[in-house]
């Protein structure tokens, strides 16, 4: 029995962490926040490390790793609030394409030649008048909060959970960047007017595979971001002095940090199991994934707030930059299903909903 990360997974995590620390420090994140297109060189660097093809089989030019490895990488990217389309291009798009049996685009994705956006939010919980209509193989309608405003193509869901591939530059496709609190990743409104679309699959189970993979990696992103906020709180409390003492010696401050750590640490095993169970097809994979994303959303939100409080007034400023983590965690909470929606889905999986 071995419940934990392998040596290879720990090495993978360490090497990516070192790269991000050197190449994508907070100043780079700030630059992306000013100009979203600055995320392309960062993504290019990550594709050279193999991240775009992380879960793509070696036969299609990828690294051929599983979702537990993806979770390990996702945590590291979350820790460093790394900008870019990892979730959409490297996790969700390959998961959807592989599940749909559409492998011809995988090599281009693995090589970093394609950024693939994900416009599935209408399949999770449609808002306003979003939605797609299909006629003669063309799509008309709009998708809200599609992941990655700079993608070369999008995977879009139709009214019956079927999936389409739409090129960004095709006729009838317009994109509008939707400004959100989180400046490390971009979201857009995708409007289609008789746009050419390639049907990828009409099997509704495929969409679920992509959502599951996206959700577990999204949850690991929150785990990493929250861990970084906890580490920053402990470090800050250890050097900030008031009343002639470092504030880390005040029990009120220590207990805030202990509460963050005690809620966060058990999440690690939950996330690992979720990634492992999805890769291996173990039970109860889908239930674990729903709980993992819902639970991480709650715990990370608590950590985001508490870490900011430990930093006092400085935590509220732009100077320290803690708000980038706070906002990343806030965005992760809503994307691909809020905790309430996911808990209801968990109940439905167990047939507890009449």
């Amino acid at each position, binding site marked *: 029995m*071995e419940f934990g990360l392998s040596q290879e997974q720990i090495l993978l995590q360490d090497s990516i962490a070192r790269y991000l620390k050197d190449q994508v420090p907070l100043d780079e994140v700030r630059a992306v926040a000013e100009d979203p297109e600055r995320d392309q060189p960062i993504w290019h660097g990550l594709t050279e490390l193999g991240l775009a093809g992380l879960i793509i089989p070696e036969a299609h030019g990828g690294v051929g790793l599983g979702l537990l490895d993806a979770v390990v990488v996702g945590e590291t990217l979350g820790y460093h609030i790394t900008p870019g389309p990892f979730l959409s291009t490297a996790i969700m798009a390959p998961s959807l394409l592989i599940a749909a049996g559409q492998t011809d685009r995988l090599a281009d994705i693995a090589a970093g030649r394609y950024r693939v956006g994900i416009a599935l939010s209408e399949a999770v919980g449609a808002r306003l008048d979003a939605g797609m209509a299909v006629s003669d193989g063309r799509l008309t309608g709009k998708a809200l909060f599609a992941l990655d405003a700079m993608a070369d193509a999008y995977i879009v869901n139709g009214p019956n959970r079927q999936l389409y591939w739409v090129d960004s530059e095709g006729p009838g496709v317009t994109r509008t960047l939707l400004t959100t609190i989180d400046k490390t990743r971009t979201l857009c409104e995708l409007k289609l007017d008789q746009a050419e679309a390639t049907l990828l699959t009409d099997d509704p189970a495929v969409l679920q595979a992509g959502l599951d993979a996206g959700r577990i990696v999204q949850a690991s992103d929150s785990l990493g971001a929250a861990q970084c906020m906890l580490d920053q709180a402990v470090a800050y409390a250890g050097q900030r002095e008031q009343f002639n003492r470092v504030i880390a010696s005040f029990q009120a401050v220590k*207990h805030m940090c202990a509460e963050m750590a005690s809620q966060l640490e058990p999440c690690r095993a939950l996330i690992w199991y979720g990634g492992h169970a999805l890769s291996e097809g173990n039970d109860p994979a889908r239930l674990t994934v729903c709980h993992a994303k819902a639970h991480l959303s709650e715990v990370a939100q608590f950590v985001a707030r508490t870490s900011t409080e430990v930093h006092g007034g400085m935590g509220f400023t732009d100077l320290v930059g803690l708000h980038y983590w706070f906002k990343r965690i806030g965005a992760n909470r809503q994307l691909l299903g809020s905790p309430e929606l996911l808990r*209801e889905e968990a109940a439905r999986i167990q047939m507890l909903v009449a």
Partner: protein
Amino acid sequence: MDLTYGPEYNAFRAEVKAFVDANIDQQPKPGDGPRSPAVRAWQAKLIRNGYHSRTIPEAYGGYGAEPDIIQSRIIAEEFSAAQMNTGFSGQGISMLTPVLLELGTEAQKQQFIRKTIHGELIWCQGYSEPGAGSDLASLTTKAELDGDEWVINGQKIWTSTAQISDWIFCLVRTEPEAPKHLGISFLLFEMNTPGIEVRPLVDMTGAANFNEVFFTDVRVPKDQIVGQRGQGWQVANAILGHERGSLAPPDAAMSRLNGVIRLMQQETIGGARAIDNPVFRDRLMRLQGRVMAMQYNDMRLLSARINQNQDTKLAGMVVKLIGTELRHEIECLGIDVMGEIGLSYGDNPYLRGNGSWQYQYMYFLGLIIGGGTSQIQKNIISERGLGMPKEPKLATSGA
């Protein structure tokens, strides 16, 4: 990641299953007391077959197997699945026996271990005092040497099973001049020694789960000490760490949570099942996710013990804090879904689950406080887990 125990354990599991199947009808009945012949015979049978005191050497009455965490886990799983009686527990078995094995003299091992694991000696633990709770090392019950005997005076509190115990293992101050952590000794003595008075301490559940124990000139032979004079604190700390995690096992929490699900499927509010109320359902699912995290955390800890290859210090430290609070909330939901019926207690005809929901709700508040309060746990997590500094001592406080 490999969650299987490996094919080499298949035969062992089959062996345990066969024992369970052959003996499930012979286990003691719920009403049999700890000193009844049926319970004693059952205990002896468990030990003889290696299902209790498995790794305790045969020379001391145990089964004498090599330690194997997975085998122990398989035994626990199979007994739990069949709801089979696992034999005696209690502080003599869980806490004193490991200490004697590690620190006791050969004579002490011979004298106590066989009888303790066979349930012939029941023990209680004399640690906390009215003035020494979280700050246990400030305890003041004193033992003074008079010839070949210790003379003990003072008071203990929160002493579970004192009223039925044969012996007590007890922390007493023997070196009043030494710093507080270095002046304590670990003594063993009989509960029928003259000068001992046990008073039941009724708690909020209505039961007396604990006692107060008073010592007035209690005379105890000098050699009934474990370790050296003044080393009692180190002895006690070694086993307190063992107690903490075991107060809140996640599998028991999941079992109670599944009980809440069944309750929610049966209880109705205005004719609708509680499970069909989306607010209750959300509370249920939120708890389920938290329990699930603790279950996988437990697997991670188990794996780290087997393979000795992972740093799980923090993952282990949080179990008592999170586990007891989580359990309290699970019991609370069980009560809430019943509404007024959830108030039922004692002989109320509307009682559900033998009144266990209210009882456990209160009992787990006791466990949030006992075995190191949640606040003490947070001190430990922040200082030993996160490396944060201790609170500076006030100039007026003791050493």
